[in-house]
């Protein structure tokens, strides 16, 4: 049986077929399951340990070694070796290997060529020493040989060209890739960075926008090239304008940045600003470094209206009205909303009822009644959304709820959440929504990135989560944060939210632990004089 398992693990993409070499080693590797560990553990064994100083005949012996087993064509072995060099970041080793191939007169295939292009690109990005002539020659070769290029090759070519003077070709290649696949973040970032370096800010920002709208984040070197271009050719005033332009642009998208990004911001802005540092913001929204108070970002009336309409169209109606409700009920809702005034609080009746787990109807009714009471005593106008079966709850509590709050009850076969959200959206901008639900399934139904962003923004600032109800009916909530996590300018200070590697790892280990990152980059410009 061990044979089977080993062959499974070794049939990974890069190693397919090489495994016959390792039948003796296979027992040692039988415990390895993931392809990743195979790549990391087996390949160094394939290559001699003193590979760094290997001369030409070493490469010959390595290739011969594989050839003896003949399970895999030699050209694939070339690819595997280059792939290994890329993944372990031994770029100079890869370049040496390529030289050997050229000297030995071996013609590499397309897979090897494009991997080498990728290696050259990575090498140029990390070391700063650009292999322009080599890249241009190789790209030219490939493009002459093939009239059409497959997506991965196009991407590698675009990446490699981005560090040369022909970077503009990358935009065409991106369009070419889009016919058959989605370009990777790395390719987008490479082209965007090239645009910034060549002083084409608008083009670069457009590409960055495209990345963000695909729900990804641009890589850190995009920002780096943006800043370095400012640094090289401008006065203070120009630099400040440019930096603020970038922040304003990124502020539209409510991104949470990586630690690396934040470090880049701080490092480059230091030259132009009074102070720039990574800091922490406390619960009430005061920055530790500059003691400014962070603000909420409420939706504008137009945005709010737009979100409401999108929500009705995509979430409640969707593909088929009958999936979530029925047309009669929808009409009932419209009538209901027309005849009633705006509410201060909208309560998700069933979510509140079940927040203590599955208990008796007595408990359900008590919980909802307590929450209603809490708001009614504060002179708020309350709406409870639920299902018709709630009418069967014990009369003492139910009568209180029915008298003090307005009710909207949907059929037992319909979903109440979409109605709840719509009622809340239909009220006021600052209406409070009481529910513990994260509403992710409804968020998913919204189509565009913009709609999703608005919905998240609204939900994060308006949702109160029920935490505790004491026996005498006292209620406590988890309130939304008094500030909003997005890039914002408070007086002269820019605040940029980020997530440190530590927090990320903590979140990965404790996926159920709800935490708000409190880490921000604080960048203070001197007051204009």
């Amino acid at each position, binding site marked *: 049986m061990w044979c089977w398992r080993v*062959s499974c693990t070794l049939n990974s993409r890069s190693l397919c077929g090489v495994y016959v070499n390792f039948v003796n080693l296979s027992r040692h590797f039988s415990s390895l399951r993931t392809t990743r560990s195979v790549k990391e553990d087996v390949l160094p064994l394939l290559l001699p340990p003193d590979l760094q100083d290997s001369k030409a005949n070493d490469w010959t012996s390595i290739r011969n070694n594989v050839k003896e087993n003949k399970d895999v064509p030699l050209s694939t072995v070339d690819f*595997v070796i280059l792939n290994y060099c890329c993944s372990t970041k031994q770029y100079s080793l890869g370049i040496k290997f390529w030289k050997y191939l050229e000297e030995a007169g071996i013609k590499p295939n397309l897979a090897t060529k494009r991997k080498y292009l990728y290696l050259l690109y990575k090498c140029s990005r990390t070391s700063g020493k650009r292999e322009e002539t080599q890249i241009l020659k190789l790209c030219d070769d490939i493009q002459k040989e093939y009239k059409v290029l497959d997506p991965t090759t196009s991407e590698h070519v675009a990446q490699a060209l981005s560090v040369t003077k022909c970077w503009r070709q990358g935009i065409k290649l991106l369009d070419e890739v889009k016919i058959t*696949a989605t370009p990777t973040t790395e390719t987008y970032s490479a082209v965007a960075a090239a645009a910034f370096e060549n002083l084409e800010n608008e083009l670069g920002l457009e590409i960055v926008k495209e990345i963000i709208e695909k729900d990804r984040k641009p890589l850190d070197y995009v920002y780096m090239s943006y800043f370095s271009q400012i640094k090289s050719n401008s006065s203070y005033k120009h630099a400040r304008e440019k930096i603020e332009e970038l922040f304003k642009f990124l502020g539209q998208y409510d991104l949470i940045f990586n630690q690396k990004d934040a470090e880049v911001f701080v490092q480059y802005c230091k030259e132009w600003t009074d102070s720039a540092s990574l800091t922490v913001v406390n619960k009430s929204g005061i920055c530790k470094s500059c003691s400014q108070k962070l603000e909420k970002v409420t939706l504008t009336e137009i945005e709010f209206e737009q979100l409401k309409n999108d929500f009705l169209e995509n979430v409640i109606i969707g593909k088929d009205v009958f999936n979530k409700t029925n047309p009669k009920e929808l009409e009932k809702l419209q009538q209901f909303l027309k005849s009633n005034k705006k509410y201060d609080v909208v309560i998700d009746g069933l979510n509140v009822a079940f927040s203590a787990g599955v208990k008796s109807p007595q408990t359900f009714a008590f919980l909802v009644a307590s929450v209603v009471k809490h708001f009614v005593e504060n002179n708020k106008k309350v709406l409870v959304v639920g299902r018709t079966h709630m009418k069967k709850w014990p009369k003492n509590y139910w009568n209180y709820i029915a008298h003090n709050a307005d009710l909207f009850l949907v059929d037992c076969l319909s979903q109440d959440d979409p109605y709840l959200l719509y009622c809340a959206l239909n009220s006021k901008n600052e209406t409070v929504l009481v529910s513990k639900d994260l509403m992710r399934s409804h968020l998913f139904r919204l189509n565009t990135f913009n709609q999703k962003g608005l919905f998240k923004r609204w939900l994060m600032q308006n949702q109160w989560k029920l935490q505790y109800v004491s026996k005498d009916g006292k209620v406590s909530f988890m309130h939304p944060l008094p500030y909003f996590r997005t890039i914002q300018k408070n007086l002269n200070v820019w605040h940029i939210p980020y997530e440190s590697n530590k927090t990320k790892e903590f979140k990965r280990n404790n996926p159920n632990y709800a935490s708000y990152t409190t880490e921000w980059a604080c960048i203070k410009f001197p007051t204009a004089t």
Partner: protein
Amino acid sequence: MLKYLPYPISVLRLGASRQVFCTNKLNVHSKNCPNKLSFDCFKPKIFQRSFSSDECHSEDETTVPSNKTLDIKSITNGDPQLEHKFKVLLLETEVLRQEGCRIPSNDFLKEHHWKQLLQLDSKSARRKLLEFTFRVQKKRESQQLKKELKRKERGEKPLVPESQGALIYDLSHNSMLLRVYDSTIDNFHNWRALQASMFGQKIVIDCGYDTEMTVRENSNCAKQLMYVFSENRKHDDPFDVYFCNMKRDTILFDTLKKSIPTMDEPWFPMNVYECSYLDLFPKDKLVYLTPHCREVLYEYDHDAIYIIGAIVDKTNPEPLSLAKAKKEGLKMAKLPLDRYLQWSSGSGKSLAINHVINILLDIKTTGDWHYALQHVPTRKVEKVITKSSTKRFGGRLSFDKDSGLFEEKKEAFWKPKWLNKSKDSRMKSEENNTDVGRQINIKKILND
């Protein structure tokens, strides 16, 4: 054993030669034939090597001429955009092959493979499909090898000794044991299905969800429909099954037709309708079985016409059948799974269509949910919530009266003994309807 080994090892064991294909440089833009793409440019080199020999072969690359041509026009319908995409995909597969990925040979990739590949719009999706096709190819090759090996082992057919006029008594010659052919069994089952179409209870399979499913889901669904047909006609008392809303020229129909080629023949006992069930049956008798509704089917109604939605929803979690029943104003019901079974955590409450039909077949004949729900796969069930009736029919768990514990039985599935008994004793056992009477009855059966 061979069956479970992956391709290379199995070949290794067989001592046969192994071939690795790698192709020359690819010329996607072949100038001479704009519409027909010649595969001559892919002439694969074959590195041949026998594993038993120790000596190293020098690169004995033999080129195999392959005259395969793919008709681009029929794949792309003459659409220049698709044609371009096709060329890109062709190069992509080739480079993946160069990288050592598991990609089937070009001979194996047929028109429908390319059509399917053209529909996918991500690299990983295409690679997964290609890898899957590679496995299929290797499986077929190794099956072929095994077949040949077996043929060799079997050797030549022994010569029949020439008889001079006298009859030879042997199994394959003259014998008193009649051979029952597969077709005979088939005819028997078909006769049962035909009987059901005259006297049996009607049941509807709603096949109108093909647009909501992916290609894979559609083909899974077709397979389940095939099982529905075959398991239904094998049952003692089958349903009269109506496949409604079955549109022609869909993946679902084509795949089903592949497994049941005779389904369109007039003599075949299978009712396939393009129209809706609403055109065939009175609305008040129809009951849609949907897991999303709230009414539970406690009492099986022998007059109702139940509808099962033919959906495989691996990716789409929407309550489609509920929406449809709501829209058409039909009665709804769901199987009483929660009442009789404790669902194990982590497994979805979805059942295959053939499981549902099996459950309904058994509830119809026995009237006992414990017995009928044995068709729910064991992996989905933590334990059966027992009642005394389980004893009667023998569920998967039995209640030990002395210790008060649930004890697992070794045989996961067995028919109730009374089914084998004569009709008279069955009537008697139904008369003793009290618990005590039942226990005594069981003791009797056990003693028997």
